[in-house]
């Protein structure tokens, strides 16, 4: 593990009209680390995520991935060329397509060298898709979705869709995954499963994580380091122990 952080964001600003949603926030994620990002509702976490992943453009600041400046890149380019994947707060899947197709699509742009090659109909293109299908089936087995793999993803439960989303992000051998509230709206049994999945990806594939999460028990459990945002600014940063003991954090977030 080299000392260089995998993700380094410095001086990020984003405003909507007069509202400073994110005000001069700097944050880094070390290689192989699971980093938490917490803060009360409206503290700018999601805006920060959107700016970091190219869904919206920051007003100022730089985003560096693996030493490369990716500020202003589009969402699809950051995913494709940077192998930095993200999830969405509201779980989304390709509803009309079955589970297997969902995962194959998630991997396609990483095995085909470009847009034109995806129109290919030759043996090479078929072999590429077949390899993706194999990989998809492995993940489907691990995620426990084997029996429903040919069902439309939209027909499955919220928890199952969450697992599909997570498996989709693992398809392209990502360097870094940004999770936006992975535990929101799922039952305790499934929370354990998602936690396991994160640990699995982190240990087995060396994926680094930045996780927005409200469930403080989960965050302190899986994260090595936590960053706290409040009103668009960075309030604190430290190990889970330090954060839980931090007086300012307790007042702003944990309710004293």
């Amino acid at each position, binding site marked *: 593990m080299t000392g260089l952080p995998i993700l380094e964001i410095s001086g990020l600003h984003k405003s909507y009209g007069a509202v400073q949603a994110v005000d001069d926030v700097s944050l880094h994620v070390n290689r192989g680390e699971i980093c938490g990002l917490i803060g009360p509702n409206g503290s700018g976490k999601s805006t920060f995520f959107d700016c970091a*992943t190219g869904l919206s453009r920051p007003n100022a600041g730089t985003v560096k991935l693996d030493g490369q400046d990716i500020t202003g890149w589009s969402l*699809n380019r950051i995913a494709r060329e940077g192998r930095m994947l993200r999830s969405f707060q509201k779980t989304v899947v390709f509803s009309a397509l079955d589970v297997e197709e969902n995962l194959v699509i998630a991997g396609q742009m990483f095995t085909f060298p470009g847009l034109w090659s995806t129109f290919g109909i030759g043996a090479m293109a078929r072999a590429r898709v077949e390899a993706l299908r194999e990989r998809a089936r492995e993940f489907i087995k691990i995620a426990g979705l084997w029996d429903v793999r040919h069902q439309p993803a939209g027909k499955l439960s919220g928890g199952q869709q969450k697992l599909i989303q997570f498996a989709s992000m693992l398809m392209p051998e990502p360097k870094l995954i940004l999770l936006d509230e992975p535990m929101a709206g799922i039952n305790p049994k499934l929370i354990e499963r998602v936690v396991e999945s994160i640990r699995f990806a982190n240990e087995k594939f060396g994926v680094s994580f930045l996780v927005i999460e409200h469930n403080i028990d989960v965050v302190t459990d899986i994260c090595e380091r936590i960053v706290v945002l409040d009103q668009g600014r960075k309030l604190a940063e430290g190990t889970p122990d330090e954060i839980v003991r931090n007086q300012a954090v307790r007042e702003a977030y944990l309710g004293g």
Partner: protein
Amino acid sequence: MSPNDLSLPAPRRDLRLPFGAALAAAACLAPLFLGSYSLHAIIIALIFLLPAHGLNLLVGYTGLLSLAQAAFFGIGAYTSGLMAVHFGTPFYLNFLAAGLLAGAIALPLGIPALRLRATSFVMCTLGFVIIGQAIAKNWIGLTRGDMGLSGIPKPYFALGPASFTISGTTSFYYLVLVIAVIGTLAAYLIVRSAAGRNMVAIRENETLAESVGIPTWRYKLVVFMISAAFAGLGGSIYAHYLTVVSPLTFQMYYSTTMLIIVLGGGAGTISGVVFGSLLFVGLSEALRVAPEVRMIAYGLCLLALVFWFPKGFAPLIDRFWSFLRERK
């Protein structure tokens, strides 16, 4: 146990292949059984099949509603007509040029149009048809305006020293049939490719598609161009079949007909569009026997369709297909 109980169940026979063969035979032998008017109706249906396939890639697979098909249909028809009249080039050259030019013109039109959101995009594509018609009417030096281009030769092939002209309805039918089969195969290969899967992903959820690395905007532009090329190819055959083109080729009527074929047949399916073009164009042509009530009857048929088959005929075709497969 009586001996009867020991008899094996009737073997499951897959009827898809025999059915396909029967369909192919029917298509090949149709001129023997059909009168020249019915044959003409089928020719028109097969000509419209190409633009419909193109539109289906856009509407059914990528989720972009477009009314621009008539514009590219007209561009294809004029390209072919002008080349044939002025340079006497053989059919296959005109045909390819029509597809290429329509596809190429879609590039500068698509770049601004695809920046627009759903409804604005539809209005913009409608504008392309109107602009196309205005140009065809007013650029008299090139298009002869409202007089139109006449005397476009029937498809003429020249391969080395040999040359021949397709003049009769029957031979034209076979030419269009071959082109329609190739076009259908091309559309099928596109939707079955990795790109086809990405197109469906864009239709299902554009932001999610972006997040898995799919350059959605570039895909939409490419599909818009392919769709236009299909329309241009259709326009080319149309010009060579009717031997005249006029500004009326740029008509909303054509765009809506193609849309009816796709939505009525079954958007997002290849077989639905084939069925749709035969049904709707065939129906429209067949109703010409009663010109007074033709459009009223056509409209009533569409209303009935919307009520009883909101997803088009694709689900019915699917059911029929699995009936052939699972027959016990």
